[in-house]
């Protein structure tokens, strides 16, 4: 158990500001990976164990009113099925991305900064996964958020990157505030709820577990239902901000301004998954009301479809993948909302690998040709065989073609949600949206593949001659390709299976496997294959499908390219609404607050100007002041004080 502390400890000390810091970071992340995978295997061997090491950091004594049971702040690490699963993802992808960075980033300036920030991110992410209470979770949640901000703005001299970083930070901040409010509401509701005699869940520091099971146990869901619903919606808001779910999705495509490695690690595999992880943790340890569940399913299902439509038309290879990430996160959110947290996390697990693969393959392309515009690329499969193959494997996994990883997990989600349709008919529209998105997913990712790799030559002849990257870039591609093929098959490994089953223990329903619902699986595979086929017809072999200007679909295309005008809308709100408020606040600040401050300042300036005249520098004068003070004190103590005491009549 102490090993997980080692992970956090190592991760913290990984910040070496050295020229060869890259290799140091790689070495430490490799160590973290070994430890992380060992913990994961340990959890698979003994599924369903909760290992919690914690210290009370601060304890407030009980106070009548506010804290009837006192209040503890706890710091600890918890290894349970879900954190073990996430730890594997974080450390494995983290290590591979670190290694890849050595090749991808070699000509960049500010490398120590890059590796330090990436290491800090990995440390914070491990901490988030291992946190054993909601407050500690929130602290790490903010830490990964700020790392994301740093890394999106890595090319800070580029205005678009700087503004994308700000956008990401501000939009996720909206979610963070909601998350914090959710914590408060849960605290308010649960402050006195908990096992008898232990003084309440929230009073004991928001712990997730009491050692071998979720802490709240039988008390789960008691209290004011309206309050709990609102709290759940707030948590959903926090998750939506981090996982870029509708309507807080706008920041993720712009976050592609950061280095591609960062997109792969933070904005595909780990940090954006933290929102899903939060929902999963909350659903397992705190529980959602049925209204919350519907809201989560709705947001997830709608986002899965909504983001996929935008990916269909985008010309930028990284943004296509970014929209795809939003869409896939929507699937996960939907699964968690339907009550199958572990199914969602299983998709998170496989998605992390194939999406990191797609990003790293895209990074390889960008590294080689120096552009992200799909319409300038073409014919790259001749010069970049490995990258083309890797991207194809990632694409097949994403499209949900068996036996690639995405098939197993995405199908799990669809059949899990399908199984709930009987009791929750209001899930239908969102289920259908998500189902249609399978087709779109297959289409857009293969559109990207055909545009970049098929054909005879690049459409833009000025592109530099493409070539594969150095071995440090090729190895991660190969490893991730293997994982993108095999990660889904892990579900047939007994240990992994029981890990998933034990994690869903609180929900009481085991996850279902794609094979149990053959018809649904074949339908989704057919949709996926159809999407690929359509992409081939329109874009295969170097073809470029041009929508005629008079086409009726033209406005739709423009709507999609403009992202449904969400960004424009948010900018307008920011410019008009927030600016007006800011102006008012500025006025208040300048005239009322500053006025008060300046008033004090002037009074003191005048007073001190007077006072300084008595500073003569002559020792005797100072001695005289001392004596005068002494006499004043005597007068006060011996004459005034007794007089006052006699007057008031006190003791």
């Amino acid at each position, binding site marked *: 158990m102490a090993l997980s502390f080692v992970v956090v400890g190592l991760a913290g000390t990984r910040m070496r500001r050295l020229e060869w810091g890259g290799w140091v970071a790689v070495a430490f992340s490799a160590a973290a990976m070994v430890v992380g995978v060992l913990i994961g295997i340990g959890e698979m061997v003994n599924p369903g164990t909760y290992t919690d090491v914690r210290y009370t950091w601060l304890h407030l004594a009980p106070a009548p009113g506010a804290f009837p049971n006192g209040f503890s702040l706890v710091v600890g690490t918890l290894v349970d099925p879900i954190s073990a699963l996430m730890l594997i993802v974080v450390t494995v992808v983290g290590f591979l991305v670190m290694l890849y960075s050595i090749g991808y980033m070699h000509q960049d300036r500010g490398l120590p900064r890059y590796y330090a920030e990436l290491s800090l991110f990995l440390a914070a992410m491990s901490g988030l996964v291992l946190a054993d209470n909601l407050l500690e979770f929130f602290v790490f949640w903010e830490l990964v958020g700020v790392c994301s901000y740093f890394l999106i703005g890595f090319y800070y001299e580029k205005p678009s990157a700087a503004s994308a970083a700000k956008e990401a930070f501000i939009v996720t901040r909206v979610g963070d505030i909601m998350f914090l409010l959710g914590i408060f509401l849960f605290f308010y509701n649960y402050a006195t709820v908990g096992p008898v005699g232990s003084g309440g869940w929230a009073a004991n520091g928001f712990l997730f577990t009491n050692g071998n099971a979720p802490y709240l146990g039988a008390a789960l869901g008691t209290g004011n239902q309206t309050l709990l619903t609102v709290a759940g919606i707030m948590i959903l808001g926090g998750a939506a901000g981090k996982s870029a779910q509708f309507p807080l999705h706008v920041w993720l495509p712009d976050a592609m301004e950061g280095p591609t490695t960062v997109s792969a690690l933070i904005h595909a595999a780990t940090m954006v998954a933290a929102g899903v992880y939060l929902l999963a943790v909350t659903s397992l340890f705190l529980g959602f009301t049925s209204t919350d569940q519907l809201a989560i399913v709705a947001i997830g299902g709608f986002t899965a479809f909504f983001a996929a439509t935008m990916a269909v038309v985008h010309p930028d290879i990284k943004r296509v993948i970014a929209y795809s990430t939003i869409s896939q996160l929507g699937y996960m959110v939907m699964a968690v909302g339907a009550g199958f947290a572990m199914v969602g996390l299983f998709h998170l697990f496989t998605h992390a690998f194939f999406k990191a693969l797609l990003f790293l393959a895209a990074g390889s392309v960008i590294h080689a040709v120096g552009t992200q515009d799909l319409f300038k690329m073409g014919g790259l499969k001749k010069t970049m065989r490995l990258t083309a193959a890797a991207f194809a494997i990632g694409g097949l996994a994403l499209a949900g073609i068996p036996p690639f990883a995405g098939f197993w997990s995405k199908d799990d989600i669809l059949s899990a949600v399908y199984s709930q349709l009987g009791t929750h008919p209001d899930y239908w529209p969102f289920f259908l949206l998500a189902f249609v998105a399978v087709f779109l997913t297959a289409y857009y990712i293969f559109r990207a593949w055909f545009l970049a790799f098929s054909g005879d030559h690049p459409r833009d002849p000025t592109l530099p001659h493409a070539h594969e990257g150095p071995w440090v870039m090729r190895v991660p591609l190969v490893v991730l390709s293997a994982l993108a093929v095999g990660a889904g098959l892990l579900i047939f490994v007994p240990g992994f299976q029981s890990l998933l089953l034990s994690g869903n223990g609180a929900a009481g329903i085991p996850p279902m496997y794609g094979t149990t619902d053959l018809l649904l699986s074949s339908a989704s595979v057919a949709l996926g294959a159809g999407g690929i086929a359509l992409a081939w017809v329109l874009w295969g072999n170097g073809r470029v499908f041009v929508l005629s200007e008079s086409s009726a679909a033209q406005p739709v295309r423009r709507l999609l390219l403009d992202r449904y005008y969400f960004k424009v809308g948010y900018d307008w709100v920011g410019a008009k609404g927030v600016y007006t408020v800011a102006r008012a606040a500025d006025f208040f600040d300048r005239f009322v607050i500053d006025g008060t401050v300046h008033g004090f300042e002037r009074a003191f300036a005048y007073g001190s100007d007077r006072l300084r005249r008595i500073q003569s520098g*002559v020792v*005797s004068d100072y001695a005289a002041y001392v004596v005068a003070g002494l006499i004043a004190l005597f007068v006060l103590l011996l004459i005034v004080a007794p007089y006052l005491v006699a007057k008031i009549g006190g003791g």
Partner: protein
Amino acid sequence: MTDLPIVGFVGLSTALLAVGLFGILTRRNFILILIAIEIAMNATILNFVYFGAFSGGAGGLSGQAIAVVLIGFAATEVAVGLAIVLALNRLKGTINVAQATDLKL
């Protein structure tokens, strides 16, 4: 000794303190100020002696002991004070405290 009123003794030391304070406040010569400080300090030491003697017993002895220690302190204080006088004289060419106004901004 107990037949003498304590007011007389305390009055003596108060008078000494007043003399010392007067000297400190009115003299401009650093050495005279030092002497005045010594007078004021001796008022304090005398207080220890009186009250020690009045309380009697072990407490009384400790009063005398503190008086002896304080005499030692007074000696060191004078040593430091005279060192400052020398330094001041070297720096300013005078030991008139009214001219040593470097503390002023």
